[in-house]
Structure formats: structure tokens, C-alpha cells
């Protein structure tokens, strides 16, 4: 590159060859990127997959003291509307006495105290929980009961008895308005 730099110095700046080199490499890089991008893009989720991963559920119609089941990412999700009594009862529990301590506020979204959203699978031996309908067996804490190993959960999904030692998992979700929640 000795002659190039000499040439460049003579003209007091970048030579024509340097400019062409930069131009060629730059357009080559853009071209290579444009060819590679579709390969990356094509293996990502399509619009249907993205929509399913960001499921929107209407929660306005859920009656108090009962829960609905939706499937999201292959998991049964329980969305439960608490009664005023259940809210008061679960708030009154001293958190440190629990098997897996979790405060009331950590189990609900701020401003939406009455909605509990959990993955409806027992955290010990995986098994769909009972207790969504008011008539279902719910255990002594008016929450959920595992028909497989007898683990007991309260209405916030905190484990209160039985072999299981972990609270129910809370999926990723947010309230997009008062009536709808969006997962993912």
C-alpha cells in the first residue's frame, strides 16, 4: 500500500482507489446482509406463532369466586376472580408463616387486586389442579387442590399444605385495559 499512500499524499486526501475500495466493501457487506437476513427471519415464529405467544384474554366476564382455563404456550392457565372476602383473608395471612413466602402484592398486578393468574399445574407432581368452579373441591383455604398428591393452595396460588413446596407459577402477562390481559 506504499504507492497508494504516496498517491494519496500527493493529492492531499483519500485516493480514488481507496474510495472505490470502501464503496465496494460497503455495498458487498450490505448485499451479504440482505442475503443472510431472510435465513434468520424465516426460522423465527410466523405471524400465527407470534399471535399465539401473545394471547389476549377477555377477563371481564369471569364471575367472582370462579376461574377460567385458557391454554397458553401449551400450559393450562387459570384466571381467577377473587371475592372481597378472599382478598381480605389472603391479605391477613402473615407471609413469613408460609411454606413459600410471597406477599399479596407479589401475586397480583397493582390495581387489579381481584385477578389471580397462575399456571394451573401442581408444582410437585405435575397434575391439573381442581377448584376453578365454586362447587369443585378446593381444600381448606378455598383455593385449589391437587387431585394427585393432595397439595393445597390458597386463592392466590400459594402452597399451604401437602407434598408440594412451591407456589403456583405466575405466567408473563399484563393488563392492557380493565377487561383484557395479554400474555407473553
Amino acid at each position, binding site marked *: 500500500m506504499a504507492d497508494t499512500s504516496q498517491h494519496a499524499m500527493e493529492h492531499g486526501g483519500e485516493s480514488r482507489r481507496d474510495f472505490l475500495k470502501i464503496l465496494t466493501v460497503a455495498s458487498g457487506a450490505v448485499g451479504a446482509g440482505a442475503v443472510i*437476513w*431472510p435465513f434468520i*427471519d424465516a426460522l423465527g415464529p410466523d405471524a400465527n406463532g407470534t399471535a399465539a405467544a401473545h394471547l389476549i384474554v377477555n377477563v371481564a366476564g369471569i364471575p367472582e369466586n370462579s376461574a377460567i382455563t385458557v391454554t397458553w404456550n401449551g400450559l393450562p392457565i387459570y384466571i381467577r376472580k377473587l371475592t372481597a372476602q378472599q382478598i381480605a383473608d389472603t391479605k391477613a395471612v402473615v407471609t413469613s408463616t408460609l411454606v413459600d413466602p410471597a406477599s399479596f402484592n407479589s401475586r397480583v398486578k397493582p390495581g387489579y387486586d381481584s385477578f389471580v393468574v397462575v399456571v394451573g399445574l401442581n408444582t410437585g407432581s405435575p397434575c391439573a389442579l381442581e377448584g376453578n368452579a365454586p362447587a369443585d373441591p378446593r381444600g381448606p383455604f378455598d383455593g385449589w387442590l391437587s387431585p394427585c398428591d393432595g397439595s393445597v393452595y390458597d386463592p392466590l396460588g400459594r402452597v399451604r399444605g401437602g407434598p408440594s413446596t412451591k407456589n403456583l407459577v405466575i405466567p408473563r402477562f399484563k393488563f392492557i385495559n380493565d377487561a383484557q390481559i395479554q400474555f407473553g
Partner: protein
Amino acid sequence: MSTDVKKSWQATRLPCPAKETGSCTPTLERGAPYLARLPALITGAALLLLASGFVLAVYYNPDHGFASIQFIARNVNSGWLIQGFHTTGATMLFAAVYLLLFRDIYRRAYTAPGELVWLLRVKLFALLLLVGWLGYALSDGAVAYWSLTDAANAATGLGGVAGVIGRWFFGGPNGAGTLARLEVFHAVLALAVLGALGAHRCATRALARQAKPKHPVSCHPYYTAQTFAAFTVFALIFAVLMFFAPHYGLNPLNRAAADSLIIPAVLSPPWYLAPVSAVASVFSTTLGSIFGVIAMLAVLAALPWLDRSSPTGKRGLVYRLLMGLLLLDVIGLGWSVSDPACTISGGLTVFFTIWYFFHFLVLTPLVTALEAK
């Protein structure tokens, strides 16, 4: 640990092939034409086909081949583009291979010591024809479905060893599972194409080392720069075809879904399979068609021995003229099966097939021997 020590540590445990001579030392003849870069372009196109084929294989469903291709084109992100890479990539790859073979025939590059390179090129062509047909069958359109059904019925109906191979390959008549196995064969043979390209590269390198150049230059930067320039033109043609003529040379009826009760009016294959398809259609029996295709490739492979001229002999005008006729003959073969509305096309196919074999088996030895005198 210094770099040298690390290098020898690795070199003793993973002894990679010695650095190719010719990349930095001046061993190559100056002034090779741009068309001499065709093998590099073919390798590039093959790699693009492999990469796009991997993505297509993720979404392709052999139980619903046609519908899954529609899904790829419509629902998969950039799926239309990946499919375009694959379709147009096949067209560009075959165009480059046809050009390479014809250029070799014209230049008589197959003469000693280039016989092995020539044989590997014919082998590459034969493999690509098979892979190309399998890919065409996987498209599962109305025309491809009938091509596959006819082939499977013919192959499974054969007797003897041919029938055993046919039944093994197709697993019975075209039905559930046929496309699944063809998908696997398509992918495995595509990897075999890469193997053939690798062997071809070794052979061409060895050939280049044997030649004693008068004005030697090093591969880099002289021929890397030329390769990049050739690649740019290749990519430009590729892009124009893909974006402005994505179905160039393909039967439009194949864009419709297959129906087992409706045979399309025009059953022509993609352009790159057409000359071979024409020779196969001349014969009335299945074994005859198979023989015809094998003979078509065999006379190509035998060319170094059919050419009776000495390596340093004169290149006469008559033989050059015959080259032009051969080119027209192969184009005519392809054309004659793509237009059945023409009533004389069947007769023309027979004529072009006879001329093809006449050229290689009679004219080539005769004319080259006469001109060498």
C-alpha cells in the same frame, strides 16, 4: 503459550491439509477468462441451494407437499424469498453447469490430462439431474405429481434387479410416505453433490499445478478479484431472474394443486430436465427410457476417448460447426417436449435424439480423426 507452540499443538492433533499451493505463490497462468470461474459460481449456487433447502426442509410437510409450499410462500417470514432462492438457484446452477459442460466440449478441455476433471463434471451433472428431479417431484404440483406417479408406477412395475431397486427407491406406487422418502433422498444426494464438487476442486487444483505457466501469477489477488467480479455478475442475473421472472422455464400448470383424476394438458418438466426428459420419452418401454438417459450421460463421459485428435492437434472448422449444431440439438430436445401442441414435436424429439447420439458416436471420432491428419 506462544502462537507457534499453540499452532504446533493443534497441527499435531488436527493435521489439516497443507496450505494449498497457488494461493500466494505464482503458479497459475495469467489471463484466464471469466468463464473459467464457473466452478466457483456453481459451488456458490450449490451452497445457496443447500442453505435455502435447510430452511425449506424445516417447514416442508411431505404429507401435504403442495399446501406446505404454499404455507412457506405465504406465512413463513421471508419464506417467499427463501423459496425464490431455491427455485431460481436451481435454474442458475443448471445454467452454469450446462455452460460449463458445453464450454469444455467446445474447448476440448476433456483431453488428457483433463479426463478426470471432465468425468467429475459429468458425474456432477448426473447427480444434479437426479437431485433436480427429486426437488421437482417435491413441489407436488399438478405436473410434478404426474411425473412422480408415472415414474413410481414404471419403476415398481419392473422385473428383476431394476424392479427391486425401483421398489426400494419409491417404496411402491406414489402414495402416503413417497414424498417423505424423496425429501430424504433429495437432501442426501444434495450433500453428495457437495462431495462431487469437493473432488472436482481437488482435481482442478492438481491439473493447474501440472501446467507450466508462461506468465505465472498468484491466485490471490488476481483470481480472487476475478472470482468476485464474476460472482457479482452472476448475482445480478440471479436477482433479475428471481425478482422479475421467478418461474422462468417452469411449467405454469405446476402451480396448481395435483388431482389424481386430472392429468394436465402439458406435462413438461423444468427447462433443465427437458433435454433428458426428451430422450427418455423417445423410448416406449421403461427400461428403454432408463437406458436412453444412461446412454446420454455415458457418451458424454466417454468423450475423452471418442475424440480421436491428439492433444496438440489442430482444431478444425468443421468440428466447431458441429459444436454449434450440438448446441442447437440440445436446445431443440428441450423445446420439443415443452410444446406438445406442435404435432411434429414428437418426430422432432426422435430426430434430435438420433442426432445427439450420431454426433457423439459417429461424427466426433470421424471428424476429429480426419482433422488431426
